[in-house]
């Protein structure tokens, strides 16, 4: 039975809070051997005076000069003290408080001593941040600034009267005098011992609860109180801790669940001596030692999790070093623990600005601004077996009314089972492996207005059944409805010199845009080889154009209107990737029939990734592809005998900055398109994308009606119409 507990019992009903030490001390000790009692009374008379002096001295005690980290600055001293105490507990370091006058206003700054070792410093900062500290900056102090004090320099620990059921704890009837008398007769002496702080509360009840919980596990469990600026803090101490085994003690306590604890040194405790007369003289000297201000010492930092910050909880329940129970508040509320993100919207707004180098053959505006918006609603249920997604998109363009458009990118329900999936609704599907062009990708119509490079797609209504097996993945598609390609209006750029009359589109199929198309695809992985085979049967997504002359009253052609013709095609495609070390070899090949004569086209190349290029963190990818179309120069596509070379640079930095430079070169006509695309995140919610394209080496033409007609009628037309369409695009996206 510890002396502390007994004393607590004796104090029951006799707690005199706020009374001077003198009176309290009389009640503190009760009947004792006269000599000892006298010594103690004297001690308690004289030493509080000394104590007071020492206290006031230590309030301005000299701290170590040097470099410190400012971890907080408060106008309210009490708030500063509370925070300092909490930080000290959580980060396991000593915290000093320094009042500073800034333009007439007193701020209370919390300081933490900097480590000399950079690695330890980083750990300390991470603990502080985890404990909720935001900005930190360095300062240096002389150590003797007025008002500088350690937030934990608790000078005077009082024993606490825990008058809540403590008598039950004692285990014997308090009124039984024999046991009490026995204890009274036992001499006690004060010794200094080291203890581990297990908890710090402002509410005595909480302290007592913890005390009860731990009392069985340790030789001594104490509850000590300290009064800091009028507020009582109740600290639960466990121990005593042997100096030689401090780390082991702490580790064992950690395993028991006591985290964020620190060793409190030189705590004066009364120890019952077995009937040994105490030498009063040595007692005094020892007491003198005990009165010196005991500061917490920095123990080796531990990365430990913070509890909820005191602002979130009732002050009375806050515990600086407690058994870990609650989950970390670190995570944002929107993330469900390991659940799916259910029923949530994500939105982004983008502002796009395009600057064209020249007015071009159509003599159009050089500056085009536009804004766009895309949102996504995503919900799962049945533990992810059913998924619903809705993605609307809209763009408004400053000049081009055609480019101002709306689309539903996705409106889909996916049902997942063990070996099959069914996906219905408006969706987007991507097939293919190459970088410069996507021959095999055919399901979705290109959103030609967004970007002429063909990377953006319109949503396609479909029913898709996906079967999974050890033989690979087999997808069946029923494509309900057809989406026509849209073309820029009269004020849009880049565009052909003649407008496209979309309303007059000609369909081979009688059902026109209501035709149901079909597609099938199989993929399988064979070690380092990934293979895909596909077949599509339906209306082609890429129209060819019929030229319709517009004549004047005299029968002279004055204008040309391009009418898209959508034929029904059969396209078989194969795509393959083969990985060898850093090299990824890629192939896409198609054979298409139905658009006039059957033809085939292929893209073949590689992508090599150099990890940590030039000894840095960045990756450099080298891309080289050859584009072929057996229709030769007459092919109405860009890539009929072309080479694409590209460099992809990934900075691998915090902002995920990447840059891609691609040159597409026509071997026969020597036309060259150079494109640079770079993107980077800005802060947490913004992203910037910069894109520039330069068209060079095109044929010159007469920039009039006849000239254009001549070029258009010539099957070997390449990018002639786009020679003056060099542009720079900057897009800024904000995510919500």
């Amino acid at each position, binding site marked *: 039975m510890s002396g502390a507990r007994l004393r607590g019992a004796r104090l029951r009903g006799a707690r005199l809070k706020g009374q001077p030490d003198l009176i309290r001390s009389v009640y503190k000790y009760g009947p004792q051997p006269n000599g000892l009692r006298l010594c103690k009374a004297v001690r308690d008379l004289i030493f509080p005076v000394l104590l007071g002096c020492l206290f006031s001295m230590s309030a301005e005690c000299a701290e170590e000069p040097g470099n410190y980290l400012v971890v907080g600055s408060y106008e309210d001293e009490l708030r500063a003290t509370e925070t300092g105490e909490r930080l000290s507990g959580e980060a396991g370091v000593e915290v000093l408080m320094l009042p500073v006058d800034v333009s007439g206003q007193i701020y209370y700054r919390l300081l933490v001593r900097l480590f000399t070792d*950079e*690695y330890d410093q*980083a*750990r300390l*900062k*991470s603990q502080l*941040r*985890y404990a909720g500290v935001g900005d*930190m900056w360095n300062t240096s102090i002389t150590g003797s600034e007025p008002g500088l004090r350690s937030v934990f320099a608790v000078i005077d620990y009082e024993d606490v009267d825990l008058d809540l059921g403590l008598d039950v704890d004692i285990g014997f009837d308090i009124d039984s005098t024999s046991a009490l008398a026995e204890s009274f007769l036992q001499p006690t002496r004060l010794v200094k011992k080291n203890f581990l702080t297990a908890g710090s509360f402002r509410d005595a009840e909480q302290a007592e609860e913890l005390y009860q919980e731990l009392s069985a596990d340790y030789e001594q469990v104490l509850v000590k109180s300290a009064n800091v600026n009028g507020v009582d803090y109740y600290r639960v101490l466990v121990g005593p801790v042997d100096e030689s085994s401090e*780390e*082991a003690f*702490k*580790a064992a306590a950690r395993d028991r669940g006591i985290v964020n604890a620190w060793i409190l040194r030189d705590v004066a405790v009364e120890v019952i001596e077995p009937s040994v007369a105490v030498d009063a003289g040595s007692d005094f000297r020892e007491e003198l030692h005990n009165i010196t201000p005991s500061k917490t010492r920095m123990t080796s930092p*531990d*990365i*430990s*999790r913070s509890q909820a910050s005191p602002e979130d909880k009732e002050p009375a329940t806050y515990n600086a070093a407690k058994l870990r129970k609650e*989950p970390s508040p*670190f*995570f*944002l509320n929107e*993330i469900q*623990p*390991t659940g799916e*993100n259910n029923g949530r919207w*994500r939105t*982004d707004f983008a502002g796009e600005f395009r600057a064209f180098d020249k007015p071009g053959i159509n003599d159009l505006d050089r500056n085009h601004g536009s804004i766009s918006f895309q949102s996504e609603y995503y919900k799962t249920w049945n533990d992810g077996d059913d*998924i619903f*997604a809705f993605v609307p998109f809209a763009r408004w363009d400053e000049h081009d009314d055609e480019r101002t458009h709306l689309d539903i990118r996705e409106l889909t329900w996916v049902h997942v089972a*063990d*070996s099959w*999936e069914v996906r219905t609704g408006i969706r*987007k*599907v*991507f097939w293919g492996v190459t970088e410069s062009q996507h021959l095999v990708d055919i399901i979705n119509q290109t959103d030609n207005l967004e970007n002429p490079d063909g990377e953006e797609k319109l949503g396609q209504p479909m029913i898709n059944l996906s079967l*999974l097996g050890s033989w690979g993945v087999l997808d069946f598609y029923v494509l309900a409805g057809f989406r026509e390609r849209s073309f820029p209006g009269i004020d849009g750029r880049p565009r052909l010199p003649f407008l496209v009359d979309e309303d007059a589109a000609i369909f081979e199929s009688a059902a026109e845009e209501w035709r149901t198309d079909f597609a099938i695809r199989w*993929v399988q992985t064979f070690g380092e080889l*990934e293979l895909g085979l596909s077949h599509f049967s339906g209306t082609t997504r890429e129209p060819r154009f019929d030229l319709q002359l517009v004549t004047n009253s005299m029968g002279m052609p004055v204008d040309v209107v391009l009418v898209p013709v959508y034929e029904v095609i059969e396209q078989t495609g194969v795509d393959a*990737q083969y*990985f060898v*070390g*850093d*090299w*990824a070899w890629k192939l896409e090949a198609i054979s298409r029939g139905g658009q006039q004569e059957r033809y085939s086209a292929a893209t073949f190349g590689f992508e090599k*990734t150099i*990890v*940590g290029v030039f000894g840095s*963190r960045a*990756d450099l990818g080298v891309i080289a592809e050859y584009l072929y179309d057996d229709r030769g120069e007459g092919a109405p596509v860009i890539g009929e005998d072309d080479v694409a070379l590209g460099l992809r640079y990934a*900075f*691998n*930095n*915090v*902002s*995920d900055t990447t840059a891609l430079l691609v040159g597409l070169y026509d071997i026969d006509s020597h036309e060259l398109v150079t494109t640079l695309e770079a993107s980077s*995140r800005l802060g*947490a*919610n913004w992203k910037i994308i910069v894109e520039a394209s330069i068209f060079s080496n095109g044929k010159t033409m007469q920039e009039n009606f006849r000239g254009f007609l001549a070029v258009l009628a010539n099957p070997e037309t390449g990018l002639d119409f786009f020679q003056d369409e060099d542009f720079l695009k900057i897009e800024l*996206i904000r*995510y919500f």
Partner: protein
Amino acid sequence: MPIMGFPGFVFFLTLILPAFSVFAESAADKGLAIAQEADRRNDGWVDSKVNLEMVLKNARGDESRRQMRLRNLEVEDDGDKSLTIFDTPADIKGTGLLSFSHKVEADDQWLNLPALKRVKRIASKNKSGPFVGSEFAFEDLSSQEVEKYEYKYLRDEVLDGHETFVIERYPVDKYSGYTRQTAWIDKEHYRMLKVDYFDRKNSLLKTLHSTDYQQYLGKFWRPGSMLMYNHQTKRSTELHWQGYEFSTGLKDSDFTRNSLKRAR
């Protein structure tokens, strides 16, 4: 007379030599034994789900945070499968990474780019590259199989109050970014407490501290926090793991290209 002459002598040696070898356990054997025991203690978790917050800090103190969800599947006789889905920052929301790690061969990885609806397979020799710009390389986060390293036991040491074995391990894969790693494994529970990473020039590159270990299902220890500090660039990355769940019923079909595509 049984033991006579030279054949008898040889016979006699074969009886006693095994006894000698027990006493002459090499540092390599002991290192391997420690690694195997650590692996054994981590057997049988079946599958797990966890949330992860990553705090990236540069030398100046600027911070950047990422949040992601991880699912892992234990595979018999091979490395684990994992599916990582990013939640923040906003522009990579919904990006997913599927990874099949193997005992000896390089990992297979696929990246899902939701904006393009494209699943791109990553060249697998990229293991030494940084994972989303952090100080953790892909190989640091993929499942630590015993066969991926050769081992050597160095000494015993007390670290942060724990008795530990200190072992050195040498990556077997030539594409690894490290020549060697020094690992502190605690004796009581065989948890990895600290790892020093040495780069290709054999100079100290990074140190990983794993703390806040908690035990799950009465057997498996998982750290609550990890700090990777790069001594050369003074950058660091902290990982905070939360909400561990085990044996949640995940299957192979949850770790396929299809599941990668539909995860958001």
